[in-house]
Each structure stands twice: as C-alpha cells, then as structure tokens.
C-alpha cells in the first residue's frame, strides 16, 4: 500500500464517519450501560480480559481503529504508509493530542508503549512484535516500524484493546504492575476515568480537551455492574439501562427484549473478534480419525436450524475454515449443506460399524446444551451412535487438553486475519497437550503448514490470497474440525442512542461517536 492509496482510504473512512453523523447530533446526556463481569483492572495491555477492553477502549486509544469491514481507520495516527517490500510501516501521528493529565502525546509514547510496555506485559501484542525488528521515532509525530520480514496482519494489529497507547511520562522506569496510576487510568480517549465503586459502577466523564472537533457528544458513560443475568435483563426492561453490550444478557432473553418498544438491535460491532463456533473432532483415533466420517458429520448437521432456533437467526453459517469476517475467504468452495443421505452414504463407504462416540457440550449455559442436543439428534438420525457427556468447565478444559474426547463444542475468536485467529487451529506445530485452545484435534498436514506459514509473511495481499485459497480447499476436503457457526453477538440499545456502533469492536470504542436523541 503506497501513500496515496492509504490517504484515499483514510479520507473515505472520514467521509463515511461524517456521513453517518449528518443527522445533526445533540450534545449532552449520560448513557447507562452494563459491564459483565466486573473487570479485574482498567489498564489495557496490563489486563487483557474482555470487560477491560470494553470499558477502557473508551479511555485509551490505539494508533488505528477498524471499520466494520475491518479496514483500518485513522485514530492517533492520521495517516500511514507501507514500503514496497512490506517491511517498513511509517505512521504520522495526529498533532495537538494530549493525555488526560494535560501532557502532550508524542512519538516517544508510541515507542515506549510498543517496545517496552507491551513487550513486557502483553502476550497478544508480543505475538505481533516478534516480527518487528525496530521501532523508531523519527520526529515528534512520526514513528517507523521496521519488520524482520513482511507480516500480513500487521496493519490489523493496532486495535486499542490489543495495542493501546500508554503514557510514557507516568510509566517509564516504574514497576508497571504496581504503578500508582493503575487505579486511575490516563489515556488519550474521548472519555476520562472518573470513579469506580467496586461491585456497583464504573463512571467515565467527557474529555473536554478531546482532539477531534466536537467529540464526544455524551457527558459521560456509566458502566453498571449487575452480577445476575435476569436482573440485567430487568434493568434494561425498566429503562435503568440504555445499552446492553453483546453477551450481557442470556441468549434466550434477546428476542423478548428486542421486541420491546424503542429498542434497537445491531449485529455489527463484533467483526474484529467474530467468534467462530466449532466442533472439535479427534483426528487421532476412533471413527473421527476417518476423513469420510468427519465429512458425514458436516452433512448430517442442520446448521441453519441451529442458527434460526438457538441463535435467534443471528450469525452466519460458514463455508469452511475461514469465516465471513476473516479476510481471504474462498467463496468458491461447495457448502456442506444439510444432507443426511450424503452423510449415510459416506458412513457406508467407510464401513462405520456403529462404534459409540461421545460428544462434550460447552458448559457455558442453556444455549450450548440445547445445541449439543440438536447435534446429537442430527447425528443419530444418520446412524451415528453418539452419547452426550455433561461436564463442567474444569472437566471440559481437562478432557480437551488431554485429547480425551471424540466430539466437543468450542468457539474461538478470529481477530480479523487468518494468521492471527485461524491458522493456530490447524498448524501441526501447535499440537501440545494441556491446552484446550491450540490444535486440539491433532490435524497434521505438511502442505497446510507450509501454506499457512508462507501466507503469514507473504506480501502483498494478492499473494496471501492465493496461498490462503489453496489452504482452504485442503481444509474443506479434510474437515479437521466441524465448522458450526460464526456467532452473532448482538448489542441491544434504546433507539434514541444514536450512532453507537461505528467500528469493528462495537461499544469497545463506540461511545466516542454516540449521542442521545432525547
């Protein structure tokens, strides 16, 4: 990507934002929303939990933001360019940005955040930084990242939750974890930390000095902490709460809440994470070691039914290993449509003798239990002898870590790029006992390893696309795991909260543009 193109994209992103704002926003008002569960701390980079990302994404900022199509948009960097060999990234920082305590934000803060703070504290940023050779501030408002070799997902790694900018003047040379400012986070974002009453509420107030003209519109955002799911739903029903971020109420409550007057729902705003539900299939032993059996499972499952009935029609049934929100999806693959006859044929062909296999549901609540029941019934109808084994979270982690299962439910984040969120499930050097999050199924294919590794460092994107297309064809044929659904995690809000979700991380950085039409 050369400079003119980058500028064109940032200009387009700006145009998009201003078009959305054309509705003459009103200033003022405080939005009440929910944070669930209560975060362990609010300093991004030091704490990686989802609730921290949600609250602190409005206090801190990254160099870039991402649209719902995962295109980079300017944030602290107003423009950027990439060298022809894909190894040098130059970011031009916005001028006149100050931290919440009044100090100026400069290129030194970027170098400190990336090279010192995140390298020490933040494993997900470290995974990206291992490709970085050097980070230099060439002047107060220019930072140059030099990579060891091209790294495809580099430009998508700057989201605030993963790669937040922290103030050098408060943290440099201190013991980061015991720094006195951890209790009062200082960022550059549109909202300032005001107060945290443990177990009750986290209050953010408007940053009057915010560098973007006119933003934010809101006077503040209150994140209420209500530990019980039913009580959260009631708080929304009786209008104490204006916004329910995704995952804060039980799935089965969503249709009821969404049907209320003056309630709007959006599925947008989770593209960056795009949780992908999968069915682990043990590739090592038993019937599931046979490719034809795994294909039969894919044909036997009525995934559209699960989507409509269990997930209220939200989400997306994927073609294969790459979800619709991941880049480089190969659309030419033939979908595994619901086809019990084809499944029976495949089982006959492999000579399946009715050996009993087990299925482990994900112990995350009712929806997952129902889902396991549906899949079990689907499989029984094509003649697979399957028994469900109920476990708790500890038992589930342990059995997957020990590879002691035949079929098991899970879901994983995709993080916008195959090299960040997808290849980890299929690479053979990612097979290691003890973790339920790596290549648990035990799939080994040299060609797949080769393609994934090559694609991660290939440049430019056209080359990556070709490599990823081939890998998808192989995976689609081999079915190392079952691809169930890209989950839709909707955000519910009062319709008079305008312009709430404007990015691929939703409310995590969404209150910046939001305003109240009251």
């Amino acid at each position, binding site marked *: 990507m050369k400079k003119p193109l980058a500028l064109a994209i940032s200009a387009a992103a700006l145009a998009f934002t201003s078009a959305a704002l054309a509705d003459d926003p009103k200033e003022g008002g405080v939005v009440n929303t929910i944070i669930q569960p209560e975060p362990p701390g609010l300093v991004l980079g030091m704490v990686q939990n989802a609730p921290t990302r949600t609250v602190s994404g409005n206090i801190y900022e990254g160099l870039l933001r991402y649209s719902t199509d995962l295109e980079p948009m300017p944030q602290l960097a107003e423009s950027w360019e990439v060298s022809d060999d894909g190894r040098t990234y130059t970011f031009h920082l916005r001028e006149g940005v100050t931290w919440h305590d009044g100090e100026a934000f400069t290129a030194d803060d970027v170098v400190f955040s990336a090279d010192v703070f995140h390298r020490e504290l933040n494993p997900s940023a470290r995974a990206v930084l291992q490709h970085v050779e050097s980070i230099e501030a060439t002047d107060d408002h220019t930072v140059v990242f030099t990579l060891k070799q091209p790294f495809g997902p580099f430009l998508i790694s700057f989201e605030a939750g993963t790669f937040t900018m922290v103030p050098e003047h408060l943290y440099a040379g201190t013991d980061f974890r015991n720094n006195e400012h951890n209790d009062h986070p200082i960022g550059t974002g549109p909202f300032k930390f005001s107060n945290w009453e443990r177990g009750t509420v986290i209050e953010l107030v408007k940053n009057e000095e915010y560098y973007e003209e006119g933003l934010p519109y809101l006077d503040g955002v209150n994140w209420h902490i209500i530990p019980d799911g039913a009580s959260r739903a009631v708080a929304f029903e009786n209008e104490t709460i204006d916004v329910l971020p995704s995952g804060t109420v039980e799935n*089965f409550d969503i249709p009821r809440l969404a049907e209320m007057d003056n309630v709007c729902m959006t599925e947008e705003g989770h593209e960056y994470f795009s949780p992908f539900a999968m069915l682990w299939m043990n590739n090592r032993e038993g019937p599931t070691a046979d490719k034809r059996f795994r294909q039969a499972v894919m044909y036997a499952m009525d995934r559209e039914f699960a989507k409509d009935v269990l997930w209220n029609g939200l989400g997306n049934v994927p073609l294969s290993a790459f979800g619709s929100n991941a880049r480089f999806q190969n659309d030419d693959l033939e979908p595994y449509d619901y086809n019990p006859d084809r499944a029976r044929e495949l089982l006959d062909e492999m000579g399946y003798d009715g050996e009993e296999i087990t299925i482990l549901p994900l112990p995350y609540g009712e929806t997952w*239990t129902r889902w396991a029941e549906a899949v079990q019934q689907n499989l029984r109808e094509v003649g697979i002898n399957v028994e469900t*084994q109920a476990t708790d979270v500890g038992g589930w982690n342990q059995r997957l870590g020990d590879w002691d299962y035949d079929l098991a439910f899970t879901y994983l984040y995709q993080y916008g790029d195959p090299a960040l969120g997808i290849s980890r499930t299929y690479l053979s050097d990612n097979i290691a006992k003890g973790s339920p999050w790596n290549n648990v199924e035990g799939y080994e294919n040299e060609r797949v390893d080769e393609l994934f590794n090559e694609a991660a460092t290939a440049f430019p994107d056209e080359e990556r696309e070709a490599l990823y297309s081939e890998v998808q064809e192989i995976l689609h044929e081999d079915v190392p795991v079952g691809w169930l659904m890209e989950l839709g995690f909707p955000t519910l809000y009062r319709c008079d909260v305008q312009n709430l979700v404007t990015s691929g991380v939703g409310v995590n950085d969404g209150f910046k543009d939001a305003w109240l039409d009251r």
Partner: protein
Amino acid sequence: MSFFARFAQNRGALVGLIILLLIIAMAILAPLLFPESPWRMVQRPFLPPLSQDGFPLGTDTMGRNVASGLMHGAWVSLLIGLVSTSVALLIGVPLGAIAGYYGGIIDDVLMRFTEFFQTIPNFALAIVLVAIMQPSITSIVLAIAIVSWPPVARLVRAEFMSLRNREYVEAARLVGQSNTTIILRQILPNTLSPIIVLASLMVATAILLESALSFLGLGDPNVMSWGYMIGAARTVIRQAWWLSFFPGVAILLTVLALNLVGEGLDDALNPKLSRER
C-alpha cells in the same frame, strides 16, 4: 375383609391407584404411540398446545413434541423411582436388621454410620455425588439410593428391636435356628408392612429428587425426563407456559398418587391402626 377391600375403603388411595396405573400405562405405551425419539425435532418450535394435529401439547424450544417427551419421561421417572428405591432398600434393610437384631456395639457402630449420612442434607449430597460421578442414569440412581437409605435402616432397626424378644423368636432360638434364619424367616416377614408403606413414599421422593437434579442440569443428557423438560423450559417460561406446565403437572400427579397409594397401603396392612384413627 380382604386386603383390597380394606385398601379401597380409603377413597383417596383408590384415586391414587388409578392415576398411578394411568401413568404406568403411559410409560408402557410411549414407544408404541410415539415410536420416534422424543429428542427428534419434528415441527416448528414453540407450537402452542392443540394448535396442530399430532401435537396435542405443542412443541418445545427446539420443535420437539412435548407429548412424546411426557410419555417417554414417565418411563424414565418411574424407572429411576423404582430402581433407586430398591437399591436403597437393599442397603437399608440389612443394615437396620443387623443393628436391631444384635444390638450392643454392632448397633452403635451401624447407627453412627447411618447418622453420618443423615446429618448431610439429602439434596446437597445427591448433587455432590452426581457431579463427582458425571451425570448418567446409573450415577443418579446410585446418588438417590445413597441419600435415601438411612430412614429405612432406622425403621427396620426399630421393628427388629421390638420383635427380637418375642416368644416366637425365643422359641425359634430354642429349637436351634441360626441367627440368619431367624432374621430372614422369622422377623423380617413381620416387618414387611411398614417397609412397603415407606417404600411407596420413597418412590415419590426419588422421582422428585431426579426431577430436581435434571432441573439443575444434572440429569442424564441422553434421557428425556420430566425434570429436564421443566429445566429446559424455565428460560422461556414467559413465552411458552406449556413447556413447564405439563411436565410439572405430571410430576405433581405421580407424587400425589404415590402418596395416596402409600396411605392406602398403610390402612390395608395395619387394619387395627386405621380403625382406631
């Protein structure tokens, strides 16, 4: 007066018996009337009762036939009730008999052991046991049996203590019958009536326990039981009342019927007591 005539004198018991027979018939007829698995998703989800032919009680959250689930669930509930009660009797009767017959230190040891179980709340212990053993029909039956045998042991012990010094027992001892023979052939038959009455009530308790466990998600995930149906319907109780209502009524009727039958048995087996009442 014949046994049945005495039983039938208690009108409630007769009603209970009829309900119980109906439920047993449901359990037996389930595979004939609904040959398909009750887990099968056969229609649109959330069909209200009587809105479509073949679905008199409607469909559940996933389009499964509620009537089919109810019939198959009857079989599961009765099976678990009967088997776990039998197991509880198998543990409780011998322990109680030995303690009551021999007395002394044996009695002390066995009763302290029994009290150990009695001090832990039944349901809490059952939850722990099922959670440890992983939910399945076997583990649920075992857990229910383990929490419900102590009252049996105490009852049998009390009966044995009052009977062991009767003249017919001393006569048996005098002719040289062994202790085992005396326990099994002389005393035990005379303690049967209170055991039968207690057992009928224990079946009811076992059904309630199983339902409560399933409601909490600790049922056998491969078996459609009434408790499971209510547990799964709990989340949609505001949208679909019928999903929890019918299995709830089924549990209520079964437990009520068993209690009524138990009372009738008590009357029939202890005619003197019932006349005095």
